[in-house]
């Protein structure tokens, strides 16, 4: 994205990523958000914290992407009037994040914004806010009625199809309410939060080292992305710089994770378009890669391989050679399969123009990551804000402007090719030496930021430290926060049977946003 110059007057946070942090008033917060938005910037994440133990009331934190990097703004919120300005007027993507803050902390957006609950269903009453420090995480309440006020759609011939939370396939739980006429979708309303298992409350009080394992399980399919972001955040607050070889291996893992997920999605997208051949072929390649991961690194999905201070495994030269061989195997087969997908009239008929998100709508709603790049939103942390080793690799971002299922398929193919190129460079230039260093203690009251381009999009981990090297508050942010609401738009005017295909083409995380 073309970002206009943006001057930041706040101090820079230590660490691998360009991030600045400052405390602001409500007016300053709105002014800076508007300025960032006008300059082409965007909202990355929004979360709250309870500072009452420090006699500082509550706080709202907002992370914005601007030209120099990430700007994190903290707005103190008083206990007497726990209200903050409604930022969804500037960034529509803020809506669900704000509702999450209202449920979890009892801080509310002012004005006429959306005040419906989001993460809370029926497991605890509305006057209870689990992320308040006064709340004991093991308290249990009897189940109440959910009574969620869905938006009704009326008119001649309109009817509703409620789907979920238990879906027909092997996917995560969520509720989709389609309002349709005939087989055309007038409106989709999502109700998520079913996998809310109290991850953010679990983080609180953990020792920094302990948190790494939990961070790797916020969304299992992005375990590398989260583990790296968490490690960056811890290394920021403890002033740790991991050895170079560790940083290069982390990037190697991140690209392997990207290839794994894209292979799986391309297989399922073929399958959803009635080409079972595609599923069979791509999932053979995925399994080949998983088995290699398991044998070389000790875990098929590379869970717990990235730890604060470095990485937990160190491949030898024979291992690196094996990766190179696997890349050739995948590259050849993917090229053949791309030719088959491209030439297959039935598949292209299903892919083209289906679930379209035009670039201007994508920009307005803040569509991000891989799906954003398929709708002309040229954001990629690896290219725009490269840390080691991406600063040495000249990442080529894949973008497309059609914004349909076909575009999201093409971007996946191109990203596999680019990741293979990057991994080859990494194998060639991988530095020798240690892969892990000691991590010091963190002072209380620090903020650490981790910011990683996962396969789905930007992962943010915001770490606020407490006493005795423990976590005071941790917010893991998944790009699915931004992209789920856009899926509601992508389906409008499409037929119901195309929803599985459109949904798969985004492949968003439930666990990552339900927390």
């Amino acid at each position: 994205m073309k970002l206009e110059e943006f001057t930041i007057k706040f101090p820079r946070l230590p660490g691998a990523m360009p991030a600045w942090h400052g405390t602001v008033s409500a007016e300053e917060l709105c002014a800076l958000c508007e300025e960032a938005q006008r300059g082409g910037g965007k909202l990355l994440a929004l979360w709250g914290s309870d500072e009452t133990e420090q006699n500082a009331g509550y706080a709202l934190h907002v992370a914005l992407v601007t030209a120099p990097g990430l700007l994190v703004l903290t707005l103190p919120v008083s206990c007497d009037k726990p209200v903050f300005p409604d930022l969804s007027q500037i960034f529509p993507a803020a809506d669900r994040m704000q509702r999450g803050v209202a449920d979890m902390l009892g801080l509310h957006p002012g004005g006429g914004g959306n005040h419906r609950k989001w993460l809370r269903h029926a497991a605890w009453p509305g006057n209870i806010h689990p992320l308040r420090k006064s709340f004991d995480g093991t308290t249990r309440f009897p189940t109440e009625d959910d009574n969620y006020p869905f938006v009704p759609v009326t008119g001649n011939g309109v009817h509703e199809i409620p789907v979920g939370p238990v879906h027909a396939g092997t996917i995560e739980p969520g509720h989709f309410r389609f309002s349709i006429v005939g087989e055309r979708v007038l409106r989709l309303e999502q109700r998520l939060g079913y996998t809310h298992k109290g991850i953010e409350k679990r983080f609180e009080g953990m020792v920094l080292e302990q948190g790494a394992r939990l961070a790797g399980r916020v969304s299992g399919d992005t375990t590398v992305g989260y583990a790296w972001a968490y490690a960056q955040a811890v290394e920021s607050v403890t002033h740790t710089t991991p050895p170079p070889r560790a940083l290069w291996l982390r990037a190697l893992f991140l690209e392997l994770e990207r290839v794994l997920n894209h292979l799986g999605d391309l297989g399922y997208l073929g399958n959803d378009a009635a080409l079972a051949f595609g599923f069979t072929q791509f999932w053979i390649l995925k399994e080949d890669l998983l088995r290699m991961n398991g044998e070389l690194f000790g875990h098929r999905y590379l869970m717990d391989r990235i730890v604060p201070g470095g990485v937990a495994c160190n491949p030898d030269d024979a291992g690196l050679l094996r990766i190179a061989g696997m890349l050739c195997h995948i590259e050849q087969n993917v090229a053949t399969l791309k030719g088959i997908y491209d030439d297959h009239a039935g598949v292209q008929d299903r892919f083209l123009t289906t679930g379209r998100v035009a670039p201007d709508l994508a920009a307005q709603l803040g569509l991000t990551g891989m799906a954003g790049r398929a709708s002309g939103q040229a954001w990629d942390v690896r290219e725009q804000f490269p840390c080691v080793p991406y600063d040495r690799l000249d990442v080529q971002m894949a973008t497309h402007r059609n914004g349909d299922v076909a575009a999201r398929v093409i971007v996946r193919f191109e990203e596999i090719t680019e990741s293979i190129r990057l991994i080859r460079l990494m194998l060639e230039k991988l530095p020798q030496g240690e892969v892990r260093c000691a991590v010091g203690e963190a002072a209380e009251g620090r903020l650490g930021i981790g910011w990683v381009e996962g396969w789905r999009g930007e992962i943010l981990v915001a770490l606020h430290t407490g006493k005795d090297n423990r976590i005071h508050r941790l917010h893991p942010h998944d790009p699915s926060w931004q992209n789920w609401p856009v899926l509601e738009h992508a389906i409008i005017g499409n037929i119901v049977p195309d929803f599985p295909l459109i949904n798969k083409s985004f492949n968003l995380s439930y666990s990552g946003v339900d927390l």
Partner: protein
Amino acid sequence: MYQIIRQILRTGIKTETPPQPDDTLRSQIQEINAQILHHVGRALAIRHVDAGSCNGCELEIHCLNNAYYNIDGLGIHFVASPRHADMLLVTGPVSRHMEIALKRTYDATPDPKLVVAIGDCGGDGGIFSPSNALGDKCESYASCGKVANVIPVDVAVPGCPPTPVAILQGILTAVSNLKAR
């Protein structure tokens, strides 16, 4: 079409190779096949329920469908409704928000039914369950912990996530339990 056929021929048959004395996976697969026929007398229909997992276990359940494990070839298939299922494959921990949906899915599954809990979280609540003063895993405001806290479980398969082979073993163990009932 020519390209598709050429690629299929070039790929060959990936389903794990015929029995060899040291090929443990293959002997397990054959045993599964025999057990299913012996105990159920037909194919085994499985309904998967994600009751609150991180989606890691789902990744490995998906892999069961790939050509290497080819569970369809063993007579095991995933079905879209609990009403068509012999077995529920449940990943967890069970979130409070999925508690009712899981109970209803269980009630909708016809008897005799089997339940296999998948993963460390399905088995004991895993990393998402806080520990109490005695160091035991306990429930939280948002999580019911292990699957067995909500519905009866026949077999729990540990692992984070368990490998496809471990999940197959769990399915076999549950099927052979059926006879003992």
